[in-house]
């Protein structure tokens, strides 16, 4: 337990093949879903991963969950390289890294009871074989996830629960394995506004009480505001800006981050502000733009941006951004 990082990602790449070379096409094409990501997650830290759809954030999550095999680069879990490990080891690692999905309506098997759902991970991993102990762990996980009294929920089916409750069940299913890392992929975007905070607060509590590290994936910076320690903004498979929450929200350096922040509505008609609206959409990740990936949409693009692909540049010790404007 001397490792500083719960998870360390080094130059991670994940490409998907887009059509095989065959009789009719000579060249292989790849979707550059994740294209060189470096990230460190400290123990008990919450990192928000922000980006529009197609930026590769979901693929990154699946790769971190070892549900997709990395094309290049390394994933280190508590200092150990787990990028290419055997199926058996992978199973062991999965106890430690758990995931919460976007859609609580979809991520629970409708034919299972809540008890079955939360018990399943224990069965899969052959943990807590004693029936009583198993039940205790399930009850504890449910209560930790805020479903109290847990007994009331055991024999219900997912469709009998509200969206928020379902998301809590999903979290309980993850907690029962006592993970070190939780990957939350848009966990609240399908929920009603009035209850979103319920789930976010729960995650915050878990981080505090259990010391779980959280990677919180979202397309909406607004949702995670206060909760994240650090924010990483992704664009086309890369992290374009990373820093502490305050740094990124208050002093965004990358034009993309700035634009993203500007369009987040402020719930106060007296504070209507000038928005930077980027035209067009994220290009497809097969044929990447030359130079800086963002330059075709960048309101501040320079000639040099066409040629040169910037790496993350240091702004402060904790704040980095990949923009050539910073070079000057």
């Amino acid at each position: 337990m001397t490792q500083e990082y719960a998870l360390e990602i080094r130059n991670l790449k994940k490409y998907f093949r887009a059509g095989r070379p065959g009789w009719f096409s000579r060249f292989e094409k790849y979707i550059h879903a994740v294209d060189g990501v470096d990230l460190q997650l400290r123990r008990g830290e919450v990192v928000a991963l922000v980006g529009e759809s197609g930026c590769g954030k979901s693929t990154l999550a699946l790769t971190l969950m070892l549900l997709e095999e990395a094309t290049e680069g390394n994933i280190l879990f508590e200092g150990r390289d787990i990028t290419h490990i055997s199926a058996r080891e992978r199973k062991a690692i999965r106890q430690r890294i758990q995931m919460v999905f976007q859609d609580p309506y979809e991520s629970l098997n409708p034919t299972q009871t809540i008890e079955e759902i939360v018990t399943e991970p224990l069965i899969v991993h052959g943990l807590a074989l004693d029936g009583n102990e198993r039940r205790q762990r399930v009850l504890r996980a449910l209560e930790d996830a805020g479903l109290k009294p847990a007994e009331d929920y055991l024999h219900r089916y997912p469709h009998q629960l509200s969206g928020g409750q379902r998301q809590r069940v999903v979290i309980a299913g993850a907690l029962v394995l006592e993970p070190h890392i939780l990957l939350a992929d848009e966990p609240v975007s399908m929920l009603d506004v009035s209850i979103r905070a319920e789930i976010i607060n729960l995650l915050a509590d878990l981080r505090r009480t259990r010391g779980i590290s959280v990677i919180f994936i979202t397309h909406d910076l607004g949702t995670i505001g206060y909760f994240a320690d650090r924010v990483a903004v992704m664009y086309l498979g890369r992290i374009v800006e990373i820093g502490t929450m305050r740094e990124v929200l208050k002093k965004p350096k990358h034009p993309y981050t700035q634009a993203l922040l500007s369009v987040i509505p402020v719930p106060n008609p007296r504070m209507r502000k000038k928005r930077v609206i980027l035209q067009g959409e994220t290009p497809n990740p097969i044929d990447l733009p030359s130079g800086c990936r963002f330059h075709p949409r960048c309101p501040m693009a320079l000639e040099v941006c066409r040629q040169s692909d910037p790496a993350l540049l240091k702004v402060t010790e904790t704040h980095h951004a990949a923009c050539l404007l910073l070079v000057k």
Partner: protein
Amino acid sequence: MNSASPVGLERIVPLNRYRYLLNKVGWSVFTILFVLVLNFFLFRVLPGDPARALTKDPRMKEAAREALRVRFGLDKPVINCFDSLTPIKLGDCGVNPLETQFFIYIKNLLQGELGISYKTNRAVSEILVERLWNTILLIGAGQILSIFVGIALGVLAAWKARTAIDYGALFTGLVAWSLPTFWLGIIILFWGSSHGFPIGGKATPGIGAYPFLQQAGDIARHMFLPTLAYTIVFMGEYLLVMRSSLLDVLAEDYILTAKAKGLSAFQILKDHALKNAMLPIVTIIAINLGFTVAGAIQIEAVFSWPGLGGAIFEAVESRDYPVLQGAFLLIAVSVILANLIADLTYTYLDPRVQSE
């Protein structure tokens, strides 16, 4: 490890349209080749000796038996052993491959020959071609009618969903679907024959000498009962599929959009619902058409219609394997082609179809 890309990414990767078509055509060609080979070996498994059925008769002398074998090419080895395939031995070694039944079969196929009927001593291709036109006539009329009636009723049922019209059409469709074809044929045959319709055949024998209009009328009279039976049988399926397909389409949001645009119910049906709802039907029609090149065996048998189905029925009864073999090939190829056509039509009807 699961190599599928995450949901949502697939859409970004459109397969070239031509590549899609070429893929389909290539697969069809492969299937046809497979069927060719299967067709050959399947019928070699059989005790397929034309002399066999006659063998018990003392009038059949050994020389005649042997002559028949030679005539049907059964004296040759089935297939040689392909040296390159060792250690798999397909057949006898040391045989001239060009002298094997397999190569002769392939060679004949390339020349459009399908062998000789055991029973009638005629070229199978000749028999099949002769019968094919009659089948196309009957099946064509039957399919067109059943498609129109089935689809029209299906549309009506879906449009008037949950009304007496719908329930009536649905029940009609279900009953029509449940009827055993030959049984319906028999019932219709005896109903029709007591109402002045001809009992069997394609035309009154000897009608060939009469003027065209009379001939056409005669054929139409003969066609009426089998077409009726055929229409009822297939109508049920079209009705049910159309109804359910259209119900799905009509519940789609774009129908609501069309309604919000102020279009009338008729306009919506015509311009927005029908084409979309036809998509699943196209496949069914194509497959049906493919299989019906085989002729509606039961209907042709009941109504003595001299089509392919009738030929198959007779071949089944008299175990005329070369005819069955030819029919097998013809049906399979037409089904494959029909499927191909369905796929191609699909790309035309549904712009979304691009990748598998």
